[in-house]
C-alpha cells in the first residue's frame, strides 16, 4: 500500500471521487492552478480543468453560497475555506442556509456540500491561522462534522462524506498535514461516518480526542505506559453525530475520562462530551471528567505552545483524575 501524508490522502480522495463522479467540483481561493495554499488540490486543475476546479474571487460567503446553489442544481461541490479562521464570513450561509435547507424545505432540497478546511494551531499562525471552530458547527443542527487525525481516516472519511447527502464540515489538522504519514489504500474505500476508533486500548482511564490531538494523546499514553499507567485513547473521528456507544463502552470500562481538544475550553465540544457521558453513565464514573483544552484567550503567536494542550498537561490531568 502506498504511504501518504494527510495532504496527499485528501488529494487522493478528491481525485478518486472526481474521476468517478462528474458532479464533484472543487472551488475556493487559490485552489486552481496553484493547487491551494497547502497544495491539497494540486494537480486537480490540470486533470479536471477550470470548470471543475474553480478559483473563486476572495469571498467565503460567495464560495459557500455558490456551492449551495450548485448542490441544489445537482452538482457535488467540495468548497475549500483556506483556513478555518476565515470561515466566519460564510457563517450565515453555513448555519442559516446550508444546515437548514433540507429541513426548511420539508425535505425537498437536500444540500450535499462538503466544506474542507484546515484547522488547529502549532504552525506559528497566531490568532488567525490557528483556530478550532468545531463547537460552533456541532451546535448547528443539520451539519455533520468530521475531524480525522491521520491519512487513512482522512481519505476514507472524505470519500464517505462526498458520497452521502448531508452537508459536512470536514476539518483537516494542518499542523500534521505533512508530519502524519501512513499507509493508505489506493482507489476507493469508505469509513463509516459517526464511528469512533479506539486507537489504543487501556484500562485505567479513557482519553477522548480527535484531529491534531490524537497524536498528543498517543504520545502521553506511551509515556504513561512506562509508568504502569494504562490509557485508552479514543479518536472520535466524527464529532457530529459523535459515537456515543464507543465512548460509553470505553468510559464504563475504565471508569475515568479526560477530554482533550485544542479549541478554547469554555463551551467547547469537551463540555458536550462530559454532559452526555455523565447523563448516561454517572454510576460508572469514579472521578469527574476533566478537560485539557485550549485556553479561554484568543490564540497567541509567540506562546502558542504554552497555549496548546500537550502530553505533559494531559498526563498531569490524567493523574488528577486517577488520584481523585
Amino acid at each position, binding site marked *: 500500500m502506498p504511504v501518504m501524508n494527510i495532504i496527499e490522502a485528501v488529494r487522493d480522495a478528491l481525485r478518486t471521487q472526481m474521476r468517478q463522479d462528474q458532479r464533484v467540483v472543487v472551488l475556493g481561493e487559490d485552489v486552481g492552478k496553484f493547487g491551494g495554499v497547502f497544495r491539497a488540490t494540486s494537480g486537480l486543475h490540470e486533470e479536471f480543468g477550470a470548470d471543475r476546479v474553480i478559483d473563486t474571487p476572495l469571498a467565503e460567503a*460567495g464560495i459557500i453560497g455558490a456551492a449551495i*446553489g450548485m448542490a441544489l442544481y445537482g*452538482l457535488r461541490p467540495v468548497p475549500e475555506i483556506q483556513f478555518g479562521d476565515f470561515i466566519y464570513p460564510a457563517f*450565515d*450561509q453555513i448555519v442559516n442556509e446550508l444546515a437548514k435547507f433540507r429541513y426548511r424545505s420539508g425535505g425537498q*432540497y437536500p444540500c450535499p456540500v462538503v466544506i474542507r478546511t484546515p484547522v488547529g494551531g502549532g504552525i506559528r499562525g497566531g490568532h488567525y491561522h490557528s483556530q478550532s471552530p468545531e463547537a460552533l458547527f456541532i451546535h448547528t443542527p443539520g451539519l455533520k462534522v468530521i475531524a480525522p487525525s491521520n491519512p487513512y481516516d482522512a481519505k476514507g472519511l472524505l470519500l464517505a462524506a462526498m458520497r452521502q447527502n448531508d452537508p459536512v464540515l470536514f476539518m483537516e489538522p494542518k499542523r500534521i498535514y505533512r508530519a502524519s504519514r501512513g499507509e493508505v489504500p489506493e482507489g476507493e474505500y469508505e469509513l463509516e461516518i459517526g464511528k469512533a476508533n479506539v486507537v489504543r486500548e487501556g484500562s485505567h482511564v479513557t482519553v477522548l480526542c480527535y484531529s491534531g490531538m490524537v497524536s498528543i494523546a498517543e504520545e502521553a499514553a506511551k509515556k504513561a505506559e512506562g509508568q504502569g499507567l494504562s490509557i485508552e485513547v479514543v479518536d472520535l473521528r466524527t464529532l457530529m453525530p459523535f459515537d456515543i456507544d464507543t465512548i460509553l463502552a470505553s468510559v464504563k470500562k475504565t471508569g475515568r475520562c479526560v477530554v482533550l481538544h485544542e479549541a478554547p475550553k469554555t463551551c467547547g465540544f469537551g463540555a458536550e462530551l462530559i454532559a452526555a457521558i455523565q447523563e448516561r453513565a454517572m454510576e460508572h464514573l469514579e472521578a469527574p471528567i476533566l478537560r485539557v483544552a485550549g485556553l479561554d484567550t484568543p490564540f497567541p503567536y509567540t506562546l502558542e505552545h504554552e497555549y496548546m494542550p500537550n502530553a505533559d498537561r494531559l498526563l498531569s490531568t490524567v493523574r488528577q483524575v486517577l488520584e481523585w
Partner: protein
Amino acid sequence: MVAVQMQDDLRRVLDDDGKVLLGAKVPQVSDEMLHKIFDTMMLTRIMDDRMMRLQRQGRLGFYMKSIGEEASHFAVAPLRPSDWVFPSYREQGAWFWRGYSVTDFVNQMFGNEKDPVKGRQMPVHHSANWLNLVSISSPVGTQIPQAVGAAQAAKIMGKDDVSMVYFGEGTSSTGEFHVGMNFAGVWKSPCIFVCRNNGWAISVPREKQTAAKSFAAKAVGYGMPGIRVDGNDILAILQVTNEAIERARAGEGPTLIEALTYRVQGHSSSDDPSVYRDPKEPEIWERRDPLARLRGYLKQRGLWSEAAEGEISERHNQAITDALAAVDTLGPPPVESMFDDVYEHMPWHIAEQKAWVMSQERTKSPHYHH
C-alpha cells in the same frame, strides 16, 4: 422616487393608463400569455387580500402583501420550466405563474399537515422543488450567491438553463448581494438579478440604502449590464427580462434589472407604516397600479371584458374559499415529523430526543389555528 416619468434611463412601454408610449417597442407577447399574466396577477392580488384579512382576524400568524409590485413577479414569465428561480418573500405571482397551487399556498400559510414544507417555516416561506422554485428563507440576500451557484452549475453541466433571483432594494446593501453579483460577473454566469426597488426596507427609505444614482448603476461594479425598468409596466418587464434571458442563454452572462416600483402597504402584517412615512406617498403610486395598467392595455387591445374579469375573480376567490374550507379539516403536522429532514437519516441523538418528546405529556400548540 415619485417622478418616474421624468427619469430618462427608465425603460417603459406603457404609460400610467396602459397606453403604449409613443415610439416604445412592444415586446412580442402572445395574447394567451397576456391573458395568463392578467389572470395570475388577479390571483396574486386576491390572495393577498384574503390572507391579510385572515391575518387581521387572528386566524393567520403573519402575512406579507405585494400589492402594487405584482408586475415585477412576471419577470419569470419568459423563463422555461427547467430554469431556476430564487425568490425573496414578496413575489407571490412568480409562484402561481410557475404552477404553485392555491391549495399549497394556503396550506403553507397555516403550516398544517399538508403544508409542502411541513409546518417548518413562517407563512410566505414557500418551497416547490417540482417547479424549480427554491425554498425561501428570511435572512435577506442569502439567495443571491446561491442563484449564481445554480446558474454556474447549469453552465458547468453543459445545460442552457438560467437562474433568476429576486431581492428588494434594501437587500442590495448586504454583503451577499455584492459577493453574488461579483461571482456572476467574473464567471459570466447565466443569472438574472431582479432588484425590486419598492422604495422601502421596512421603515428605511431607499435614499438611506445607497448613495448611488440608482440600483441598476451598481452593475458597473460587476462588469454587467444594469437596466432600470418601470416595475409597474408589465410590457417593459417582459421586454427587459426577455433580453436578459436571451443574453444569459447565449453565454453572454448576467444582467441586473432594477424594477422601480413601490411598496403600497406596510412591510408585513406586523408593520405600521404611518409611524415613518407620509400617508400621501402611497396614493401617488396607486395611480400607477400595475394591474390597472395591464387592464388598460388589454382593453385597448380588445382583450378584456368585465365579464371575463368577473369570472377570473370569482374563480380565484372560490379556489381560495375551497382551500380555506379544506384547511378547517386539517391539523398540524404530526409531532413526529418535527424530527425528520434534519439529516437524510436520523442520527441517534435526534432519535433519542424524539422518543423522549413522544413520551412526554403532549403540548397543545397554543397557536395552532384552523
